[in-house]
């Protein structure tokens, strides 16, 4: 694991965006070889998306040969609802970049047969040659995507009922009205993300600190599903200082010491 610690949210977002940018450019995608990218939603990646949009508008980065797979989507929410993950991706990312609509994949929470939709999603990932880089966030309860505590660490894309913690955390997007928050979602499984060739987890803010501690300093545990990535060969955790508040000083100092080396990964190419 690489643990990248930046001073604040803005710097963490920028580091993550630069990393993604460099990975895509180095991969040199073309019509026969698309760069497959897994994407998250939520407030954490917003800064990263803004930076990626900036690089795209500057001409430094093109999404023409990038294929994206989003992690999750609410069940039963109309696709054009302002809080749907389709809306989130359109407003915060897709509409600002040069990606072709047919190269974006977001689970359809209104599909007639939800499990069939999930299976089809897995097939699409396979058909695209697997995911090159899966970007994700972490919930306060340590979940990745909607893989709530207790989710199998080898799970695949499926329908999940949301934990009360998650519903409470999401209520702020639904006028604080708990009854308006969707209770089910389609989500990629822990196993699905583990299949990616590389995984990048963005974690910022003090409220995520305990989850980060559980994810990297304690054992692999299905109650904190992000901990599964301890067993992935190529994981990057990008965080701000606040997110490290529950880590051992020794851990933080060790990885801060590696920043000189790690920063080479985001230098302009």
């Amino acid at each position, binding site marked *: 694991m690489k643990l990248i610690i930046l001073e604040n949210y803005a710097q963490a977002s920028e580091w993550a965006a630069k990393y993604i940018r460099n990975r895509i450019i180095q991969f040199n995608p073309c019509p026969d070889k698309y760069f497959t990218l897994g994407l998250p939603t939520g407030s954490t990646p917003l800064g990263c998306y803004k930076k990626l949009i900036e690089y795209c508008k500057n001409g430094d980065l093109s999404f023409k040969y990038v294929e994206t797979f989003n992690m999750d989507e609410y069940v039963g929410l109309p696709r054009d609802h302002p809080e749907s993950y389709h809306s989130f991706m*359109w407003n915060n990312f897709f509409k600002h970049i040069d990606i072709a609509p*047919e190269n974006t994949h977001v689970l*359809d929470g209104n599909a007639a047969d939800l499990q069939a939709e999930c299976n089809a999603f897995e097939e699409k990932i396979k058909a695209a040659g697997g995911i090159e880089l899966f970007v994700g966030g972490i919930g306060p309860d340590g979940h990745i995507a909607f893989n709530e505590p207790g989710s199998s660490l080898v799970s695949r894309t499926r329908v999940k009922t949301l934990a009360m913690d998650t519903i409470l955390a999401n209520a702020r997007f639904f006028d604080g009205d708990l009854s308006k928050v969707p209770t089910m979602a389609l989500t990629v499984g822990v196993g699905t993300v583990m299949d990616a060739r590389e995984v990048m987890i963005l974690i910022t803010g003090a409220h995520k600190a305990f989850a980060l501690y559980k994810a990297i300093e304690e054992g692999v545990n299905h109650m904190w599903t992000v901990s599964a990535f301890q067993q992935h060969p190529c994981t990057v955790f990008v965080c701000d200082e606040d997110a490290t508040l529950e880590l051992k000083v020794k851990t933080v100092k060790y990885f801060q010491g590696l920043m000189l080396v790690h920063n080479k990964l985001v230098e302009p190419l």
Partner: protein
Amino acid sequence: MPSNKSVSDAPVVQFTNCRILKNHKLQREDLWVREGKILNPEKLFFDEKIPADLQLNCKGSIIAPGFIDVQINGGFGVDFSLATDDVRPGISLVSQKILSHGVTSFCPTLVTSPPSVYHKVLPQISVRNGGFHGAGILGVHLEGPFISKEKKGAHPEQCLRTFEEGAFQDLLATYGCLDCVRIVTLAPEMKRSSEVIQELTSRGICVSLGHSVANLSQAEEAVQHGATFITHLFNAMLPFHHRDPGIVGLLTSDQIPICQQVFYGMISDGIHTNPAALRIAHRAHPKGLVLVTDAIAGMGLAPGKHTLGQQVVEMDGLNSYIAGTKTLSGSVATMDTCVRHFLEATDCTVETALEAASLHPAQLLGIEHQKGTLDYDTDADFLLLDDRLHIQATYIAGDQVWRRNTFTL
């Protein structure tokens, strides 16, 4: 259910690098147009999965809904109230010329005239969509003859009428044909006006109060019977008095029925209304303000003499008076001039100024689901403007129908 098939083969045009007036705010968003309507790009992206066929860089312009002028008597030498055998060339000329003022839809207005004029002219005018030929015609605005003698303004006294005998039948006999009539201005203090207002409203015709000496109660009663507009507020009505505000009092009246709103026309040419009065009205009832030009034949022409129905008017470049008098008779201001003057005089936001000429007149006529906004699936009638609200280009149904010589996309 979303499908991957294209809903239409028509080209999708994406206007980029612009600020659009949406949800009452100028926002940095692209405007998407297809087949004459504003398109929802998110739906296009996820349902049809196709990109734009053409991207046009608007160079930072403001994009606003096209202006709607509900009171315009003519222009460029054309007088709509003249009883010609063929009014169409005149209407076409004006509808084409006002595109450069940002007007994409209008209501040709006829001032007080003898019945013979109405019988001759009205059947020749029809509601029609705008396009390369000119701004769209929403219907006719009939200002008079059922107005007050004391407040006739520039209207000819000998043609004034009442409907106290036959109420609506009198009105129908006077006008002859109501098919294309959209707005009627009348004085509500006239006997049997309530029945007339009710009948007109039930036929979908907007009733406006103007050229009147009505007091506030009479005005309120008219509103309760369906009137929703005030013709050029302050002009040709009793001045505001603190114990009887008259028609002006409607702006803050508490007798307006719940589901109804009163709109009021303002000629903000800097002449018809003192800027302080404009500000008072705007602050009292900002959502009801509708900018109108009340333009006459002399608009767009050099100073000189022109007609306004049965009257001769003199225009000196800025003002227009009944020949030989100091009675104002319409204006020669263009709609975009009015918008800019309104912005400056009230120090309001750009959004407010633009909505007073687009959203509000659309709401007045009950067509805001089709025109007056840049909402998805509404008609793609819009304007490109610079930061000082000068029109750079005019679009109707997605087609560029006018542009400034120096402006290209």
